[in-house]
C-alpha cells in the first residue's frame, strides 16, 4: 500500500460516484490512491437483479460486473482529478472467467493505463478470494471531452 492510499466507507464513496440504489456497485474501498483502487462489493441473495437473472439460478449479470469495475474506475479517476464531472463509458474490452453468485465478495482492483483530465483508459480486475472472475480494459470520457 502506498503512502497516499486510504480507505473509504460508503458515505465517502457516495460523494465520489453519482450512482445510487439499485445501481451503486461499491460497498467499501480498501485502498484509494492515484495509482490504484481496491474496492469491495458484497453480492447478496437480495440483489434486485437476481429475481430476473435468472429465476431458477442466481448469476450476477456480466454487464453489472463491468458497471462495478467502471464505478471503481470513477473513484480512481477522482483520486487524480478531484472534480465532479460526469463520466461516460466509451469502450470496454472485457472477459469473464467464473460466474458470480450470492455470497461472493468481489474485490475490484483498478489501475490507470492513461489518465487525463477529460478522459482516461484503465485496467480493472475482479477477484473472489484468489480467483479472478472478470477483467476488463475500459475507456471513458467526460462531457467536455469532445471540446478537445
Amino acid at each position, binding site marked *: 500500500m502506498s503512502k497516499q492510499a486510504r480507505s473509504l466507507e460508503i458515505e465517502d464513496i457516495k460523494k465520489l460516484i453519482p450512482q445510487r440504489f439499485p445501481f451503486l456497485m461499491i460497498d467499501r474501498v480498501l485502498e484509494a490512491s492515484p495509482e490504484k483502487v481496491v474496492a469491495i462489493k458484497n453480492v447478496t441473495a437480495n440483489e434486485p437483479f437476481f429475481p430476473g437473472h435468472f429465476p431458477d439460478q442466481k448469476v450476477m449479470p456480466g454487464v453489472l460486473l463491468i458497471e462495478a469495475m467502471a464505478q471503481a474506475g470513477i473513484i480512481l479517476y477522482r483520486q487524480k482529478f478531484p472534480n465532479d464531472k460526469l463520466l461516460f463509458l466509451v*469502450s470496454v474490452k472485457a472477459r469473464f472467467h467464473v460466474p458470480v453468485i450470492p455470497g461472493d465478495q468481489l474485490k475490484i482492483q483498478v489501475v490507470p*493505463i*492513461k489518465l487525463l483530465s477529460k*478522459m482516461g*483508459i484503465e485496467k480493472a480486475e475482479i477477484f473472489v478470494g484468489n480467483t479472478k472472475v472478470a477483467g476488463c480494459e475500459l*475507456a471513458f*470520457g467526460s462531457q467536455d471531452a469532445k471540446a*478537445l
Partner: protein
Amino acid sequence: MADKMQEEILDIVSMVIEKEKKQIPLDAHLIQEVGADSMMALEILAALEKKYRIVIPEEKLKEMTTVNRIIAMAKAAKKK
C-alpha cells in the same frame, strides 16, 4: 528504423480507428478527414506509450492531428 516506426504507428492508428491503412493518408486530419474522435486519439496515445515505453503529456493530445505529426511526436518523445 524510421520507416519501421512509420509502419508500426500506422498499424496502431489503423487498428484503433478500424480503417485500412490505405484509407489513412499520412497527412490527412484524423478527426476531420479520416473519421477518428478524441477518444481514439487517447487510445492511440496509450498504445504508443506502451509500445515505445515513452510518456506523452496530456497537452500533446491536441497535436496528434495527422499520422505524420504522431510519428514526429513519438520520435521526439523516444529521444528524451
